[in-house]
């Protein structure tokens, strides 16, 4: 009898273990895996899959395995909604997306509506890169959490740095024609006007998103304007092609960018020969000097063949785990409650926190420039085999990144 009980218990344990192992946490990754945004979308997918593997190797989240479900949205909001619905129907309670605030806004609206109509089946939207400020201001949602600094925060930091560069006299703005590009140009005009009224904005261009194949006409225009500095929020191929055209025309200006490090960007900068003339603002760089981050970088590169371009994705996934453990549940409602106001030690060192008022994550951010690496032991990582890498020129602490929000959060 006793033997039977032991055997039965053992069998139950095995069965129970199998059952809980089956119940994995699915994260719907809704980003471009084809079309003009594919190069960045693929990089993001590799990053999230690596992070899921990392979590699973350490026992997952509360014993649940993490599984990334890739869904191709072609950088298209309508397509994204179709994919999101597909994901939800397949039992996904967490979706993550980053490329394109046009997509981000649509998804934010989707989760808000879905959750109010389907109580008990809530879905959370983890945003790792859609930085249109409106998503945490007038359009904010309780079900949306953003790990990337929003566009205004980045512009605030960039213009603070530009303020101290007396060589900047004439600035040209070129951006992609959608909500994010428009918010970059508006913020740049406003903030430069306040901080450096002597700077002249000699051009303000919006071009179609991810559709231009040759930027040389735009470069000719920049050249004709006599600008010494270009500010751009371009990403993906819109950055790589822009820089490539600049290289061909021999346009030697300073570039203040959001996403120069994206796929193709570093190669184009090296081809242009713009050493230390291209600046990027991000929440981390490979050569940050933080040991844990650099060990991670090394292993990540060895396994995926790309560099860590989304430290914020690392923060997102690790913080998701921490929040689930704090709530002792993987129920989205409880995880959301745990995430609010949560403090977290970020990937590249320092403390960040998820502001309760608008679900915007605040963290130290860095301005870095791209060029040859003098000390290979301190700065071992180059980009895209160019021999050049990012080095930090300025660090902005969490406290200095705080901007007020107009969010009027509706809590369930």
């Amino acid at each position, binding site marked *: 009898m006793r033997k039977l009980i032991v055997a039965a218990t053992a069998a139950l344990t095995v069965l129970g273990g199998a059952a809980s192992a089956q119940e994995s946490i699915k994260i719907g990754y809704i980003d471009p*895996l*084809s*079309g*003009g945004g*594919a*190069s960045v*979308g*693929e*990089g993001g997918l590799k990053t999230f899959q690596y992070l899921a593997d990392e979590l699973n190797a350490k026992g997952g989240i509360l014993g649940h395995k993490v599984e990334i479900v890739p869904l191709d949205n072609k950088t298209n909001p309508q397509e994204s909604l179709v994919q999101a619905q597909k994901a939800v129907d397949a039992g996904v309670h967490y979706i993550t997306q980053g490329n394109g605030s046009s997509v981000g806004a649509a998804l934010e609206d989707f989760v808000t509506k879905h959750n109010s109509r389907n109580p008990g089946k809530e879905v959370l939207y983890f945003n790792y890169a859609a930085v249109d400020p409106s998503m945490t201001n007038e359009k904010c949602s309780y079900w949306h959490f953003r790990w990337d600094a929003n566009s205004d925060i980045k512009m605030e930091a960039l213009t603070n740095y530009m303020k101290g560069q007396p060589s900047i006299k004439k600035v040209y703005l070129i951006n992609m*024609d959608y909500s994010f590009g428009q918010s970059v140009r508006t913020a740049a005009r406003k903030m430069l006007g306040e901080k450096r009224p002597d700077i002249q904005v000699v051009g303000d*261009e*919006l*071009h*179609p998103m991810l*559709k*231009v*194949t*040759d930027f*040389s*006409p*735009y470069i*000719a*225009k920049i*050249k*004709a304007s006599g600008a010494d500095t270009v500010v751009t929020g371009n990403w993906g*191929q819109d950055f*790589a*092609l822009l820089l*490539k055209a600049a290289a*061909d*025309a*021999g*346009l030697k200006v300073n570039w203040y960018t959001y996403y120069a490090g994206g*796929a*193709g960007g570093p*190669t184009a900068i090296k*081809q242009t020969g713009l050493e230390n003339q291209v600046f990027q603002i991000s929440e981390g760089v490979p050569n940050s000097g933080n040991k844990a981050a650099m060990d991670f970088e090394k292993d990540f590169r060895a396994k995926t063949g790309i560099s860590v371009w989304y430290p914020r994705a690392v923060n997102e996934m690790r913080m998701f785990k921490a929040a689930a453990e704090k709530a002792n549940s993987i129920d989205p409602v409880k995880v959301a409650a745990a995430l609010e106001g949560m403090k977290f030690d970020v990937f590249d060192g320092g403390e960040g926190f998820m502001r309760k008022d608008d679900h915007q994550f605040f963290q130290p951010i860095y301005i870095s420039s791209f060029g040859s690496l003098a000390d290979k032991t301190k700065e071992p990582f180059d980009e*895209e*085999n160019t021999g050049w890498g990012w080095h930090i020129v300025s660090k902005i602490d969490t406290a200095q990144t705080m901007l007020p929000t107009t969010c009027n959060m509706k809590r369930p």
Partner: protein
Amino acid sequence: MAELIVISTLNGVLFGMLLFLLSSGLTVIFSMMGVLNFAHASFYMLGAFFGYQLTRWIGFWPALVIAPLLVGVVGMGVERYGLRNTHKHGHVAELLLTFGLAFAIEEIVSMIWGKSPVDYRVPAVLDFPAFTVFSTNYPAYKIFMLVVSVVIFIALLVTLKRTRVGLIVQAALTHPSMVGHLGHNVGRVFMLVFGVGSALAGLAGVIAGPSLVTQSDMAAYLGPILFVVIVFGGLGSLPGAFIASLLIGLIQTFAVALNGSLASVFGPLDPSLGPSPLTDIWNVTIAQIAPILPYLLLVLVLIFRPMGLLGTRES
């Protein structure tokens, strides 16, 4: 301003010539076989990737010759084993075949080379500014592209108009059965034409690859504009395709350079109207609508001159 005009003209002509390299093959294939080859831009992409791979293995100059030949062989294979078999089922089947082929090639390319752009560089010998207009460098590589396209254009024209091969091709265009009765192998003529057309697209890919980004979606960007070019120029007309290519190249380049909007002509709207769709339309610049101008032209041409600029037939 003069600088902008000179540089824009050069850029426009260059883009136009690149379009011509692609559209010439497409338009000849169309006029001969009656098939609008949807996979034509895919051959351009194949050319770029073959060029990239061969450049890594054996250098740019051999790649410049071999890659287009390879693409030509692929093209001939498609004609011989694909289109010829579907031909008996009519044009729709052929159209669908090329349509599916375009997707298949894109997927295969992204499977082999990935979806990220590959590092396909301008060869070192051509990596210098050819000349400086005002203060803008004009890269030697772009001049090289221009020269290659012009040479191909002349060679194509001479072949079609002055040689025996051209004569047979032209005859096969309109009277395939008569040409067959005279002892020529029409099937082989078709196959060769398809091969040459694909090879030209491949050549365009090899030379455009280092200048534009070489990645798996490059075909999808250029494809639609090619159709605009051949419809605009007149289906089947080589000179028409030439003029249309240049015109569209120039229009797109110059539209980008212009800042004019309704607001700059008629003055800004009364601010009391507030932000509305009307203010958006009012403030949109010509530069912003530059990419849709070719398609607008396509619509206008189809309405007012369906045979295109130099086309000879209505279909």
